[in-house]
């Protein structure tokens, strides 16, 4: 594994405590780590981050060091185990917080106060600390203490009401999108609070609501109501030719309504000469002859290989999408050329390829500095290095089950 040839990262020198679990908190902290922040992941002794028990696993069999979810979300970090329910565990956390710039957590809002680690306590230990709290519904309001997960976030966010078809039940986006959205949205106010600290000298609490982040994507649904009083619903499955997933011979593609003047090129690319009739060329014509258009286009697409079609259309400058599976992504030449995947050796999970950055920086960008940590791998190192504990002290803390 090689580090990025650039410097130490845009966030070099920033110290982050990651008390996150599952997806949102750890993803937020990893995005900081990817830009050079030094992240200490604080895990529960024994079991660690619950994502260690989330599949899929490298090799298929459940193992706390082989969870692909954990491995993906926690590279570039060190791991310390700490029992926050013990007074001594709390004391160690406060000592670490004194040296940190950011603490990221995504417990339910009642948890940190119940551990004596609310914003007031952390701020007393370190007034410059930025406390990033990510939760389903936020740290305030009548739903503050409601329990939630991906499904509940999607339901309350409004997105499900427009997802799926009118004939069936609402359906959420696939996989655990809400957690990733929460982590990504959470980085923004965290960095904003750090920039604010440059002028004010003080940290503050950042309160991120995952369901609100999902709602933020409804750039039509919300103004449909505030501009017209209309409520968007799930669409009826008619006039689906464009902008939806359609069958190709060997999978699925997405055809887009071509720009004006491109209709004949489009018909040539999809191999549908019967469509090259002026009656289909206008928007009005497409609506008037929707059923015939659906049938002719569907039949043409179904004869074509999806990647050949995707490439042919794009080379002709016609917008076109291909429905890729995880396998397609793993084998994608574009991602390979962009250096999106990084091979990392891990003593238990073995050598695996990991997805990486979403952007490149000309001077400082994504950097891979550490493999994912084993549970508590750096406990001794951090206690001795960061907190100046003696070897005997570390042994005592271990024996007492604090670490």
């Amino acid at each position, binding site marked *: 594994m090689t580090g990025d040839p650039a410097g130490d990262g*845009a*966030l070099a020198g920033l110290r982050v405590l990651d008390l996150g679990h599952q997806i949102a908190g750890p993803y937020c902290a990893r995005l900081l780590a990817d830009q050079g922040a030094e992240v200490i992941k604080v895990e529960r002794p024994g079991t660690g981050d619950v994502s260690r028990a989330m599949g*899929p696993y*490298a090799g*298929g069999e459940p193992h706390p060091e082989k969870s692909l*979810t954990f*491995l993906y979300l926690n590279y570039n970090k060190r791991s310390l185990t700490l029992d926050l329910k013990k007074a001594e565990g709390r004391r160690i956390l406060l000592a670490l917080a004194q040296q940190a710039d950011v603490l990221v957590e995504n417990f339910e809002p009642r948890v940190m106060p119940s551990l004596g680690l609310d914003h007031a306590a952390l701020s007393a230990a370190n007034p410059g600390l930025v406390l990033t709290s990510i939760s389903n519904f936020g740290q305030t309001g009548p739903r503050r203490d409601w329990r939630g*997960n991906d499904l*509940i976030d999607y*339901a*309350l*966010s*409004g997105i*499900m*009401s427009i*997802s*799926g078809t009118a004939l069936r*039940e*609402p359906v*959420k*986006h*696939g996989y655990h999108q809400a957690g*990733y959205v929460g982590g*990504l949205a*959470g980085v923004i*106010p965290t*960095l*904003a609070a750090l920039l*604010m600290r440059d*002028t*004010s*000298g003080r940290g503050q609490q950042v309160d991120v609501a*995952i369901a609100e982040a999902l*709602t*933020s*994507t*409804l750039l*039509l649904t*919300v103004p449909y109501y*505030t*501009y017209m*009083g209309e409520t*968007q*619903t799930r*669409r*009826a499955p008619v*006039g689906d030719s464009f902008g939806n*997933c359609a*069958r190709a011979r060997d999978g*699925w593609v*997405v055809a887009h309504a071509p720009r004006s003047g491109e209709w004949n090129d489009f018909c040539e690319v999809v191999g549908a000469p019967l469509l090259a009739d002026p009656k289909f060329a206008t928007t009005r014509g497409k609506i008037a002859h929707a059923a015939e258009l659906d049938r002719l286009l569907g039949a043409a697409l179904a004869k074509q290989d999806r990647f050949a079609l995707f490439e042919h259309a*794009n080379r002709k400058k016609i917008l076109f*999408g291909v*429905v890729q599976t995880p396998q397609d*992504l793993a084998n994608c030449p574009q991602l390979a050329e962009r250096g999106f995947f990084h091979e990392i050796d891990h003593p238990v999970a073995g050598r695996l*390829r990991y997805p990486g950055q*979403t*952007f490149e*920086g*000309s001077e400082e960008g994504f950097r891979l500095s550490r493999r994912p940590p084993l549970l508590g791998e750096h406990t001794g190192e951090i206690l001795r290095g960061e907190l100046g504990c003696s070897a005997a002290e570390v042994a005592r803390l271990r024996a007492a089950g604090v670490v």
Partner: protein
Amino acid sequence: MSPKDRLEGEFACARQEAGAMSAPHRTERESLAASRLGKPQDEHARPLEGVRVIDASHVFAIPYATGLLCDLGAEVIKIQAHTRVDVMAAHGPFPENAPGDRPWDRVGSLNTVNRGKRGLALDFTKPAGVEIFRRLAAVSDVVAESFTPRVLKNLGLDYASLRALKPDLVMLSNTGYGHTGPWREWGSVATSLEATSGMCWLSGYEDGAPSKIGQSYTDFLACWSAVYAILASLYRRRRSGRGQWIDLSMYQAGAATIGPLIMDYMANGRIAARIGNRHETMAPHGVYPRAGEDRWIAIAVGSDVDWQALRRVMGDPAWARESCFEDMPGRLAHRQALDRALGGWTAGRDAAALAALLQAAGVMAGVVENGRDLLHDEQLRSRGFFERVAHPPQSGIGTRRYMGRPWRLSATPLSIAGPAPRLGEHNREILTGLLGYSPGEVDALEHEGVIGCEITSARSIQPLPLAGMRRNRRIGAQADPDYRDL
């Protein structure tokens, strides 16, 4: 005087003019200097006070990103073309569904993302337009754009060119697939990227086709990634004095959110499938009908303890006592029967009351809210998620509610800085005040069509065909009469 010093000098002059022209406004350097000198800080100071951003982008992703920068205190100048209309404009929605004389100023989605910006309408395919862009970049901290890679390079407005004018510039370029690689010149919109990035494959009904998702969903992943990249670069610039270019790929922003599933294929050869609302280790886990037309409640039972709680709330009916439902493996195995029975119990009940009842018992539950529900939601209301923004009288838009931000800063109150600009609203003020053009020169630029404030080709934009949309169930059976009174 070195070229760099000269640029800095020009920079300072331009800043002074900007200060004389607009609201009191401290440059980033002045803000930092003041804090280092221990001068008292304005308690309403915002994180990006003194940062000037050029937004040369369209549709949603980067406009939304720069809109968020504006909320954080940046001065954002929106460069729009008056030679063609944003592709989203025809999609509306328009106030009271009336596009009016200036439909491009009346689009609800675009007015959400462009809030608080100043507007410059510029044809920068003309040499004089390119010159204006260059002069703007020379006095700005951030340029964010979303053209296909060749466009700005051909115009001499790429990072290498602009950096010569402003050495510490942070520039972000957002494209579908990135500026390198075999797909770099390929066009894309969110609907094609949802597909290529793997999300369509994973979304939709378990027994149905892959499905497009949300409203340009990958635009928002790119939006947040862009703000993350820009803020990290500004953080570094404050410490190192160095800017940089950011090459953001929406495709990668999407693929990053399914990382473990790509790894599952690479490590295990397994291709993850769509599972709809189902969960691999929880049952019940789905949406269930409730009283009313198209009304649903989501319920997720994460453990046997949760199941016992749900049984108590239901009054422990006979079906729920069946042994096959007793533990999680049993419930997962008999999921369909379980869903049918639970749906029979929820149907006809009031969902809001039911969700509160289930949550009080510790069961994860929530109403499937629609657009109307969101604007009446007590949680969002108590957190001030929607903000009222007053548009100027001549726009005819009035005061509307807009989505703010999905986060709060405890010591830094933030709000939307103002309405989206009307096309070209600040042409004259920016050119004379910030860039030092004379009024006569601005007149000439207007005459030559380098700047403008109307899109003559877009006058024909029509109202949305609401009756047809209602028939096709794109919108609900009737409009709410009191949507502006809340």
